[in-house]
């Protein structure tokens, strides 16, 4: 078999967008600076030149207006919009259109409407971007029924999941960690899709299960690798899609190892990490041999100073300690 070329996470997403736009005229891209600029993180690069200003639409700063526009176009059955919300932190100026409109229309209409749209957005700290440009707010989308929520960790997953998301008939929130845009990985040139709702075991192991998301998958793998040398066998499960959640894969891993550490960059309370801990204690209680350890940032806004931010973000050291603690 030929060696698969390596491209970045951002490039993988760009390929998915390009493929979908070339395949289906109804797919359009909307958002701030997605056109000439190519997206503030470069993900929509080249699309404006290729598909023109009608299908790659730069918007004014009116997130509620333009996300609502996407909802209406989708509900009317006329378009399949892929909308970019520049930072997940900005969801507050458009949240109603996401959680009360996009998420609920199908249900409120008795199943008689579809909302095929994707809301792409970016999350994550580590860039001294401070409290309003660094958050990981996926829990706010998971909490509300009616949204699918995707959060990939590798270029390969990014491409396959974005293709699935755009082809899905339900509203999907697709969350890209800013720290991952530059990482490279093998990605087939041809289009492929990864079903929503399938976790990926990024590393098999038998002593401890780590469930981790996005950038935290990589930190967890680092730790797993390090501990491997000491003979501690860590399994790293990447749910990839947070709604629907691959409950079976996660529970099976917990049942196998009996020990669970959850690592997530979201805020600690009512977050994805507590979600998984709750899943474990309600559905795999008998298998659990130790307390579940939850590694998240503290319950504070994201501080600006790099000196503070590096303490705020879950570190490999904390993950490692948690694994040792549950052993």
């Amino acid at each position, binding site marked *: 078999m030929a060696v698969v070329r390596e491209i970045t996470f951002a490039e993988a997403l760009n390929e998915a967008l390009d493929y979908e736009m070339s395949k289906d005229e109804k797919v*359009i891209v909307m958002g701030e600076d997605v056109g000439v600029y190519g997206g503030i993180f470069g993900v929509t690069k080249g699309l404006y030149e290729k598909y023109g200003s*009608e*299908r790659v*639409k730069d*918007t*004014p700063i*009116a*997130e*509620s*207006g*333009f*996300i*609502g*526009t*996407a*909802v*209406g*176009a*989708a*509900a*009317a*059955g*006329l*378009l399949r*919009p892929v909308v970019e919300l520049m930072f997940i932190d900005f969801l507050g*100026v458009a949240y*109603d*259109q996401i959680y*009360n*409109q996009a998420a609920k*229309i*199908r*249900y*409120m*209409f*008795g*199943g*008689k*409407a*579809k909302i095929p749209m994707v809301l792409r957005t970016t999350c994550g700290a580590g860039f001294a971007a401070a409290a309003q440009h660094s958050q990981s707010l996926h829990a706010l989308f998971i909490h509300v*029924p*009616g949204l*699918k929520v995707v959060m990939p960790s590798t270029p390969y997953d990014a491409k396959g999941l974005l293709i699935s998301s755009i082809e*899905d*008939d*339900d509203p999907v929130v697709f969350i890209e960690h800013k720290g991952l845009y530059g990482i490279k990985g093998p990605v087939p040139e041809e289009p492929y899709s990864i079903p*929503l*709702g399938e976790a990926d075991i990024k590393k098999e192991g038998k002593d401890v299960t780590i469930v981790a998301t996005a950038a935290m998958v990589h930190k967890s793998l680092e730790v797993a690798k390090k501990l491997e040398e000491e003979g501690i066998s860590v399994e790293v499960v990447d749910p990839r*899609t947070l*709604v*629907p*959640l*691959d*409950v*079976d894969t996660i529970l099976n891993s917990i049942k196998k190892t009996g020990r669970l550490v959850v690592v997530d960059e979201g805020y600690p309370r009512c977050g994805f990490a507590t979600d998984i801990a*709750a*899943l474990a204690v*309600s*559905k795999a209680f008998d298998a659990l041999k130790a307390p579940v350890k939850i590694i998240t940032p503290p319950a504070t806004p994201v501080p600006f100073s790099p000196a503070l931010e590096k303490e705020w973000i879950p570190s490999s050291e904390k993950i490692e300690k948690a694994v040792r603690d549950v052993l």
Partner: protein
Amino acid sequence: MVVEEIPKETLLWMYETMVRIRVHEERVAELFAQGKVPGFVHLYVGEEAVAVGIMAHLRKDDFITSTHRGHGHYIAKGGCIKASMAELFGKKTGICKGKGGSMHIADVEIGELGANGIVGGGIPHAVGAALGIKLNGLDSVAVAFFGEGASNQQNFHEGINIASIWKLPVVFVCENNLYQISLPYSKQQTIKSVAERGKAYGIPGVAVDGQDVLAVYEVAKEAIERARRGEGPTLIEVKTYRFRGHFEGDPEVYRSKEEIEWWKNNKDPIKIFEDVLLKKGIATKEELEKMWEKARKEIEEAVKFAEESPWPTKEDVVEDVFSTPTKGVLVWQW
């Protein structure tokens, strides 16, 4: 606009539709009082000429977005009253299978993209439908209905500006019924007319008497034709008044009985239009009376249908969240 320029069948359709809305709403008020229709119910009595004057120009493949006060829009757009009545009762045969109720009545099939429980929430949806129309090269239009209260809300501003810069085929219809629940218009804005806001977005803004269906018809004609020609959006402010409380059960402490009576006696859109039809000899008293009877019968049949329809079941609760059955969605219990 002179009545003579409007086809007779359109005039009669307008009268009949206003009557159907009126009869529907008054019957729903009773059903609410009897405890048969639960929840929040906002009725359209007194405002019938708005929906009807606008909808007279719309085709089935045009789109509208509606509000919490949406029965009139739904009926005028061609919605099935049986299905909506069953919905108001919360029955399985409802247009939304009992999941939506009054505030979420919708029928995408006829271009009714939904009532909305969020004030202003539907405005960008009309903009979106219009974007879809434009990109698909269709000659349909979209119309967003909303109250004057909504014109102070984010989606009005953001939605209209987007429609303007992208020159979309959408008409914004502001139903200024002088109240945002208890707050009179004079305390909502310092301007005298919502229509003045058109200029802020570089689009025409027109105010019109909403109790005169012919006046509404006329401004709507121009705005909708303009949109269909690809010349962009218009903001229409329709000055109207709701004859009943904000919602059923409203004690109405914020306005006087006299004020309400004045409007009912002097500005009933159905009476006003009836006078025109009779004076111009377009219909006879008897013909019009027949329409009332027909409407009453239609509504009674709908009520009967609703009453006799089955309730949705426990299993229905978890249906219709997603379009594909999806494992890993926590439906019932941890």
